[in-house]
């Protein structure tokens, strides 16, 4: 009787395990080569609206011990919170690179995605990449910023707009400059946007925008700064007496 039960259990286990292996097999692309490291080539810290496809694809490269690119290595992308990849895995090309289009999840904030490969012994190597999803407020901030702010605060020129950054004596802070901006409270940022640099003892080259932008627009600007900040902004919690 006991043996009979044991037999059934062995049979059931055998069936499930063989099933599992069987199910996973067809999706697997077989690596043609192995590398020992994944490095990011381009496409990190992009900001896009919630749920949307990032403007630029994320490109990673597989290298071997000597740092040379490995073609035909298997790359697998993963991410939490509803991030999707097109495609989510594949083999690196002849330049050792693999590129994927990333769609962000449905809630605003930072998303960490992982690109991983395995070396010949099965040991995993991975690179973690941050992307930023903008909610309504941050999107509005980005629109406001495109009109009024980036010409001075972004030192890069684009075909549509020439940067004014280097024409100023005070160096306008980039909006990703977390080291400076994270140390400023929302109220301080609102004050400098609204009243201008001169009113706060900083450079008068920062004009006051308090009469040009509405309060929600200034709040949206701050929201954008917090979203883009590198290192990431961590709001100070609320402190309660006695707890």
């Amino acid at each position, binding site marked *: 009787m006991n043996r009979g039960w044991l037999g059934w259990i062995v049979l059931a286990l055998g069936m499930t395990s063989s099933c599992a292996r069987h199910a996973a097999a067809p999706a697997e692309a077989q690596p043609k080569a192995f590398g020992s490291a994944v490095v990011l080539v381009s496409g990190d810290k992009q900001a896009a609206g919630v749920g*949307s496809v990032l403007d630029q694809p994320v490109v990673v490269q597989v290298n071997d011990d000597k740092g040379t690119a490995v073609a035909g290595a298997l790359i697998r992308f993963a991410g939490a919170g509803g991030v999707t990849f097109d495609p989510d895995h594949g083999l690196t090309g002849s330049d050792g690179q693999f590129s994927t289009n990333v769609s962000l999840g449905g809630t605003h904030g930072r998303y960490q995605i992982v690109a991983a490969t395995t070396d010949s012994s099965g040991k995993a190597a991975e690179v973690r990449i941050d992307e930023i999803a903008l909610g309504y407020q941050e999107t509005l901030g980005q629109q406001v910023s495109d*009109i009024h702010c980036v010409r001075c605060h972004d030192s890069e020129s684009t*075909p549509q707009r020439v940067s004014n950054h280097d024409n*100023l004596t005070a160096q306008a802070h980039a909006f990703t400059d977390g080291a400076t901006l994270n140390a400023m409270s929302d109220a301080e940022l609102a004050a400098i946007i609204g009243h201008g640099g001169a009113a706060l003892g900083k450079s008068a080259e920062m004009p006051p925008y308090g009469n040009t932008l509405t309060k929600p627009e200034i709040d949206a600007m701050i929201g954008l700064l917090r979203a883009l900040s590198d290192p990431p902004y961590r709001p100070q919690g*609320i402190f*309660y007496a006695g707890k």
Partner: protein
Amino acid sequence: MSFRKRVRSAWQYLFGDSASAFGTLSAVLLILLAVVPAKDYFREWLGYQKQYLRLIHGRGDANSLTRRFQGGLQQIWMPELDVVDRCTTCHTALKETSLADVKTQPFRPHPVIPHKLTEFGCVICHRGQGAATTVEEAHSSTKSWEEPILPARFLEASCGQCHLDRLLGAPRLNQGRDALAQYGCVRCHTIKGPDGVTMTGSDAPPPLLHIAEKTTREWIAAWLKNPQAYAGSATMPNFQLADDETRDISAFLIAQSTPYQTQKAPEPAPAASQDAASVQESTSLYGESFCSSCHAVQNAAGMLVGGNLGPELTRVGSKVKTEWLVDWLRDPKTYDPETRMPHYRLGAKEVGLLIGFLSSKSDSDFLGTTQLAAATPAQIERGKTLVIERGCANCHGINGVKKPENFAPELTLVGSRPLEKILFAPGVPHTLADYIGAKIRQPRSFGNALKMPQYTLAPQQIDALATALLAQTQRAQTLPASLRIPRSAPSNYRPAAKAGQLIDDMRCFSCHKINGRGGDMAPELTWEGSSVQRAWLVNFLKNPNTLRPALIRRMPKFDVTDAEAITLADYIMTVYQTPAFDQETLDSSRFTPADMEHGKELFYGKYACQSCHIVDPNKDKGYIGPTLTQVGTRLTASWIFRWLKNAQSLRPGTLEPVWNMNDEDARAVTAFLVAQKNAPRKEVAQK
């Protein structure tokens, strides 16, 4: 045995004697009675509320969170909006900003939005079934309920139900609506807003009435085969025509073409010389004429350089006939009276140079060596049938083919289209957003017989188009009209008299907006007469120079005569006056040197205007605003004074912030600026 006895024995057989039957029934009843409170106890939302209370229990602000928590079924009810939303029953913390660190649903606080949750509820923006109290029914589509939650990337569609005009915080909606107009979607599909206004195209598909004069049948056939092979930026979609179809359509288009009336006597076409010196000269003339403000050309690196108001010119030399190009450059209106291209008053030599430049922009690979055999009447007839079938006349003027009406399905309510009426292509998820996206991405995947052509669009553009289309809902039609944020009414303003003719001739409206009509490439001119000085304006019209150093798109030189410049300047000075102030309010003759000196201090100190403007070219570097070296000869004192106080009120959307300067400061800075009359020589060598 009597019937009664039979029943009784059956009863006895089933339930035993009466006493035990009563006992059994009571027990059954008790169990049934217990089911109801048990079902109530295990309701999904009660579980979430308990989970929420556990979540906030250990937090620092547990007391205030608990105090604000309301148990039981919650509901936002707004009969006038048809909103019955019970979402807040489980989404308990939507207003609790202190829970910003909570990432698990349903307890995340709602991100900042411009509306109160109690103002519109949830489903107006998010869709879903507001009255449902289970997760499945509220969020997913079921057989009886077809409106699942709208994926986050299309959320701006919901803004579009009330916001009919551009909305700063909804760039994807704006982009989608622009694309609907720009890619000609609205020329085949009728799309009406909830205000009853039909969307119109913003593209300018050329009329084909005289096409044979402009280009060859071979080019037409190659273009029809794949417009993007000729110009990557072409907005005409690919109709996926077979070779015999492009052969027949091109035959018909050539056959229907009529000669156009050139107003001028035909002059001999200036010879286009290709020697190095004239190549140099023609390239610089193309640059000086600011053709690239509207037209793009692919550079050696494959990047498009230039505007998109006119067609891309990368391969124009393989397209147009030289005789046509001569006429076109002399006066585009003779060929197409509705064109956006201005009438440049080019001389024969300039026309020759530009033709030399444009004919060098050719690509022998595009046409290859194909020669089409002479068209047969049967081919022409089939070509006409194809033109009618494909709806070419929706966009293009074609002799003998009327613009069809209701050619494609109306999309006014496409955002509420019931899923049961949609035939999904294999592999497309059963949601409306996915259907619309798939339909735009690959229309023919829904059947080869469909008429809709293949567009070349980026995934972002497809999402934007889907967003704009998802805004076209039944709900948008039924919401109270008072909630609508109306769009600016289209204006068909036409300036009068001789100046009006000149403004039309130079197509000023292609770039400038006046009284609500016109493009947005160049500054608005509605109140230009209050802003500038007449002498400056006359001079500028004759020789427009760039006011902003960083500007890429610039005003071309139209070679207007003195008389024309004076006519235009007089009209602008008289008609385009703001009612907001009057020139006599500020007497610039009473500015003293002390005023100027004070103004200079304010300019460089308190207001740091040099961050954006240049007054002293040797010192100032500001790149954003206009150069002010000669502003004293350009602008009036009153305009400068008002501008310093509130520029946005004079020209909404200008980059100048509203300074709200006090009268004293504004007067001093005005005094300083009015004195800037002569361009000081720049001492450093120009780079």
